[in-house]
């Protein structure tokens, strides 16, 4: 990286060694192994690659993964905003405890979340036994996938919106009110425009996380081909059949989508920063 020479002079030592180690470690652990997927997928040739990633069972898994992830992120958008609002604006007993608990999905291993949610929503489970007579099946159906993805995406919107909401100056709302705006107008015309970048960032993060999720989903999904089988599970299935090239092709398709999402997230955050200033 010849461009590194263009850094500004500084009296602080250690640039060479720290940037050198950073780039080496990053390359060895992340970049070179990730590039292995792209190199491996070329083995199939373009035709083979395309046939693999557009096979009916694979396409069905995209539909489920994308649909459930999108719906889960949308539900988290609404309830995340609600939870952030309640935590920042209102005072009630246990508020700090609940605030800390919001991060549970970050801290709880996904396999634990998976079996716990299954215990709740299985036909004989805690809630499942009451839903079953109503004809509602959650566990072992696409709805179960949705429930797991809501769980793991829950903290993202709360945690992106919360700091923005905290920093909003009350003067803004007072000014709007004193100029004759109703509470509803203040919220939708004054508050919401400053919150949109954070809300969308949280949504995109929850969506991206849900797309790749594996541990919490496989227990509750039932994993029926064409019905409740998520894309990451298909990669594992192909690996277990020693179809390395096929597994890699699906992985590459997923990686490309993840990188696009990452780009969108970065753009959203850039938008948020510029809007804030």
């Amino acid at each position: 990286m010849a461009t590194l020479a263009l850094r500004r002079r500084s009296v602080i030592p250690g640039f060479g060694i720290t940037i050198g180690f950073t780039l080496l470690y990053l390359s060895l652990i992340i970049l070179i192994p990730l590039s292995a997927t792209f190199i491996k997928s070329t083995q199939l040739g373009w035709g083979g690659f395309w046939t693999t990633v557009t096979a009916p069972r694979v396409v069905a898994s995209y539909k489920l993964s994308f649909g459930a992830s999108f719906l889960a992120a949308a539900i988290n958008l609404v309830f995340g905003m609600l939870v952030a609002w309640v935590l920042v604006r209102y005072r009630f007993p246990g508020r700090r405890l609940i605030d800390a608990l919001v991060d549970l999905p970050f801290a709880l291993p996904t396999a634990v979340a998976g079996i716990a949610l299954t215990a709740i929503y299985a036909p004989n489970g805690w809630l499942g036994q009451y839903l079953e007579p109503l004809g509602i099946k959650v566990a072992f159906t696409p709805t179960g996938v949705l429930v797991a993805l809501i769980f793991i995406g829950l903290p993202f919107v709360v945690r992106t919106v919360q700091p923005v909401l905290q920093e909003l100056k009350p003067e803004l709302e007072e000014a709007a009110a004193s100029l004759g705006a109703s509470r509803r107008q203040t919220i939708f015309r004054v508050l919401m425009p400053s919150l949109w970048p954070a809300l969308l960032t949280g949504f995109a993060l929850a969506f991206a996380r849900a797309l790749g999720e594996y541990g919490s989903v496989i227990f509750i999904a039932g994993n029926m081909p064409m019905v409740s089988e998520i894309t990451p599970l298909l990669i594992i299935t192909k690996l277990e059949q020693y179809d390395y090239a096929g597994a890699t092709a699906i992985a590459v398709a997923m990686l490309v989508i993840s990188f696009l999402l990452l780009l969108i997230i970065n753009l959203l955050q850039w938008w948020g920063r510029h809007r804030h200033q």
Partner: protein
Amino acid sequence: MNTTTSPTLNEPAWFRRLLIGAGLAFLGLFLALPLAAVLTEALRQGVGAYLVALQEPVALAAIKLTLIAAGIAVPLNLIFGVTAAWAIAKFEFRGKSLLITLIDLPFSVSPVIAGLIYVLIFGAQGWFGQYLFENDIKVIFAVPGIVLATVFVTFPFVARELIPVMEEQGTAEEEAALTLGASGWQTFWRVTLPNIKWGLLYGVILCNARAMGEFGAVSVVSGHIRGETNTLPLHVEILYNEYNFVAAFACASLLALLALVTLAAKSFVEWRGQAQRALAPIALPAVQPST
């Protein structure tokens, strides 16, 4: 602003209660209920059965492997996090934002793919497969693969917490120390480290929670050999699939306990960090996807 009762500056009391109620109901359904389910199911057949399940040799082996994997992955990523944050926060250079994006990359890669990439390199059909086979070195379906996959998924945690903290602090204090004749190491240990210790601890706590709880990535490279290559989360899966629910939930309850300890430690560090310095907005949970 929270105590105001003016109808133009706050919602009516009944509406506030409705919102609080709806928020709490959502969190109760999705957070409290699963947590309660783990603990209840684990104790379904009494404390005796619970303790027996935890003392199984394979369960103990799984706990040991989980500790080994986290014990290697967390220090590695700690060293990486500090060096990367030093280079990124203390110096100006081109390509910095690209470097930060690349460090965040593991957050946007599915854990399953994180496992797959090491299979492609070290597996039997992989780049080094032949060489490793001839020299009788096992990476995939063995402990090294589990450690590698854990390092990958926990890669960004420490760096991601430290970069904003160190950027916020700027370089003035270090420059002063160096001008007064301190060596680079002295400056780091005596000036930088005390300033970043809460951010560092925060990153380590999150990194450790993920390292001990990782499932997808480790599942791909583990081979699921009982007592040998099963981490605790993988052991939970095996027990569960064998319909040994009490044992599965008993092991899961250990991991749930780890999660609760993590949350408590995290809140404590946030609180101390805020008391120490104006660390507040930065120390909030990472904006990028984590655990």
